[in-house]
């Protein structure tokens, strides 16, 4: 397994722990379909939240947050709707769908975390 995948996996672990500590319930992780992947699917009250986790080992290639483009966010929203269609019974539909971004950057062995809600 390549180093970058290790970093990504570690970042996702941290993100999940962070989201749970903030009171969100994680429903699914690394859900894939033919259109792409959602890193974390969570619920907050009656909202379905698709979370993109972006981890960077530094800032030499730009910040983790700016690496998430408009296009990516739009795709996540579409994926979230598809996730609901495939994994949720009709009786348990959510009131709303939201896309969040969790950006992690490694500085001197420790991580900074930034959680941006409602990107789309």
């Amino acid at each position, binding site marked *: 397994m390549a180093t970058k995948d290790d970093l990504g996996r570690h970042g996702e672990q941290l993100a999940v722990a962070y989201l749970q500590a903030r009171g969100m319930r994680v429903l699914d992780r690394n859900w894939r379909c033919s259109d792409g992947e959602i890193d974390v699917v969570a619920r907050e009250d009656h909202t379905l939240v698709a979370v993109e986790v972006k981890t960077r080992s530094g800032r030499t290639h730009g910040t983790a947050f700016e690496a*998430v*483009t408009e296009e990516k966010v739009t795709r996540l929203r579409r994926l979230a709707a598809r996730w609901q269609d495939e994994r949720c019974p009709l009786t348990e539909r959510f009131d709303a769908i939201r896309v969040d971004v969790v950006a992690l950057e490694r500085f001197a062995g420790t991580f900074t975390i930034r959680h941006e809600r409602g990107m789309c």
Partner: protein
Amino acid sequence: MTVARTRCVALVGVTGHPIDVEADVGSGVAGTHLIGMLDTALSEARDRVRSAVVNSRHSWPDARITISLFPASLPKRGSMFDLAIAVALLAAAGVVPVARVADPFFLGELGLDGSLRPLRGVLPAVLAAAAAGARTVVVPVRNAAEAALVPDVTVVPFSTLGQLIGWLRDDDQTCAPVAETPTRNGTGEITRAWPSSATEPRAGVPDLGDVAGQPFARRALEVCAAGGHNLWMLGPPGTGKTMLAERLPTLLPHLEHEQALEVTAIHSVAGTLPEDRPLLVRPPFVAPHHTATVAAVIGGGSGAIRPGAVSLAHRGVLFLDEAPEYPATVLDSLRQPLESGTVTVSRAMGSVTFPARFMLVLAANQCPCARPAGPADPCRCTPMARRRYLARLSGPLLDRVDVKIALYRSSRRELLADRRFIEPSRVVAERVLAAREQAAKRFSGTPWRCNAEVSAQALHTDYRPAAKAMTPLLRCLDSGELSARGLDRTLRVAWTLADLAGKSAPEVTETNAALGLWLGEAR
């Protein structure tokens, strides 16, 4: 995360319009959005500003950045807004205090390393900023001298964005590097802005004393300089047409302060301003090549409309050597600026009016072969070819030329004899200045400065010579040799001749001489 606002100037022609630059650093997908009717060079500001900020060791806000230039209806072009965009953004991101950037104007283009690069058109931009109530204007160091020409504005020059950020963060505003302001004497005239050599004759500078053997042409040049008249010179090659034209500016007085600012503003926009002389005080001399296009002569160009040769020659001399070689469209396009003193260039994106009050000097050979006409080797052009050559200059254009002279080859004896009568430019310029002062005294309280500018209506009311002096002119009008406009132009030259002679009004000697100059038959 807040909104910050600062100010800048957009140039349309030589007129500046104040622009508000707003920056909002807020939540959303990270990215930079520039809005407000921008051209390509301005959209590229995003990349320049980002590199400049990062290379000035400040972090780029990791957020959604929106930058708006207002009013959005005005088309904005070029890189003049870089600095204002960077400053607004840094204020919105909390790097510099929002309150500090709200009032000053920021003008400058940014290099990728964070250096401030000089701009074109700083003078008109700072003038517009001053008119909009600016107290402080930040400019690149290399434009500081030009910006400092504008009174009542504090010019703060910087060479890098990093220094500017340091100044904006500093509470003590008094430590700002202030541009060296040119000293002004009692009349508000700038005395230090040009090197003293500009007023003194220098070696290698053309002087009227260089021209030998054309006493009549030298006199015609003096008349044109004194009254601001247009000149047409016809003669074989080697008789000194170009030499004479080049020496016309040396006879003209210095530009008045207001005129100097006008001329400098045009040259600043055109990018032809010499860096060591922020204020142009000598009348410009512009001699476009005969392959020049209409856009080059009148003004135009794709994208930003730039001033043409007629505007660069504003308050100076426009010299068209080998005039029949110019395309007819170029020659006829001179008619509007010759009448109105302005030129309006219209394009799809809008129209721009430039000042263009210049003295026109036309020179031509009598025929296309341009053979030095001597008895040994006469010109072999057919009469038809000669006529066709000079017919390229349209009647309406020549009708706007007040003084028409023919030059002939001088014999050796004439050249030697003329030596005694040669005067240097300095002596002639004194007479020109005296004549111009007499005219200016007469025109006090009117918008005119020299005889060539007087309106036709005023010529026949306030400035009509005595009936006796008018006789030769009216006779020519009756016989059809003079058009109505020709009569007005002849009258203006007559006034100039009177000014040169120190007379209070033209007499029959002056009107006769003016008629001779007009008809081109003085010899």
